[in-house]
């Protein structure tokens, strides 16, 4: 049987957007046929010396976490992903785990909140990206999400601030009424980065 990386790696490396649907299709096929797929991905996240295979494994694991109806393996992927956050894995792997856990809809996903001050900006960016989902999926209170996002809206890296402000705007649009959230969005309109300012204008007419 073809190994998971031989099957998936060419599609994962293909920069074309059109390659991703095929990648997901192949991943679903592989997981459906391979009872050990999640374990293979977990092991590769920790142990694979090839960075491509390691990062692909993290991508796959995160995708399995988000497939709410397709996979019987989803709970194993979520539990395994949570455990991997405690391991010595690369920021790229952590980034994928954060997205997978944060968008899984599982209460375990709140674990990503603890990574809002992670040393890697790509991890912090991922946290900023998924924190709104914790609220939207009903697994974290608005106040906690706003608190994390207002902290991230002060980040030194513009792309982190951009996602944080975008997240605050999403929460406000979802009906969250919070003075700190509104103040952070207003402050972001004077951000030195154009992308952050653009996101902050999302609720300009409402505040």
């Amino acid at each position, binding site marked *: 049987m073809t*190994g998971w*990386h*031989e099957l998936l790696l060419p599609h*994962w*490396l293909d*920069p074309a*957007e059109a*390659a*991703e*649907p095929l*990648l*997901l299709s192949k991943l679903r096929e592989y997981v459906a046929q391979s009872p050990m797929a999640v374990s293979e991905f977990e*092991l590769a996240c920790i*142990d*694979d*010396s*090839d*960075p*491509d*295979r390691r*990062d*692909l494994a993290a*991508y796959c694991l*995160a*995708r399995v976490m*988000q*497939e709410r109806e397709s996979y019987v393996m989803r709970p194993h992927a979520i539990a395994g992903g949570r455990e991997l956050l405690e391991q010595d894995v*690369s*920021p*790229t792997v952590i*980034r*994928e785990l954060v*997205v*997978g856990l944060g*968008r899984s809809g599982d209460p375990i996903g709140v674990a990503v909140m603890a990574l809002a001050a992670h040393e890697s900006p*790509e991890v912090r960016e991922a946290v900023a*990206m998924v924190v*709104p*989902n914790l609220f*939207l*999926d009903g697994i974290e209170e608005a106040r906690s999400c706003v608190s994390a996002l207002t902290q991230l809206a002060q980040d030194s890296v513009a*792309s982190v601030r*951009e*996602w944080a402000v*975008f997240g605050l705007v*999403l929460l406000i*649009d*979802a009906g969250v009424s919070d003075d700190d959230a509104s103040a952070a969005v207003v402050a972001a309109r004077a951000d030195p980065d154009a992308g952050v300012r653009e996101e902050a204008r999302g609720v300009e007419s409402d505040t």
Partner: protein
Amino acid sequence: MNQDPINNGDLDGRMNSAFGGGTVSVGGVYIPGGRSLGRTAAVAVGAAGGYVAHKIASWIWHSQHGKKNVEHSHHVGVSDEDLKQLLVDPLTDSIEKAKIRQTLKGRGQRRSRQNRDNKR
């Protein structure tokens, strides 16, 4: 085709040398029990500064290519136009609309990063 300038370049040479030559490119050769030869070698020389430097440089490079989870899975393969239609459809619930906005933002950011990288 490996386009990784680090694993094809000087850093790779130094790392292979530190690992006793070629360990990094064992490419899927695993010893029984699931531990890779690369990992075993990496642990053996883990204290070496060169390894740490390579690891950091490799992380930086690999954060710039390969696919990342950006879109919600159920949006993968759905065009921007179709997602924007769903965004204005009164039958689409508010949570799904928020997820669509996240996917569209993620796509936009990914494209701008690709454009930036292509100009380099």
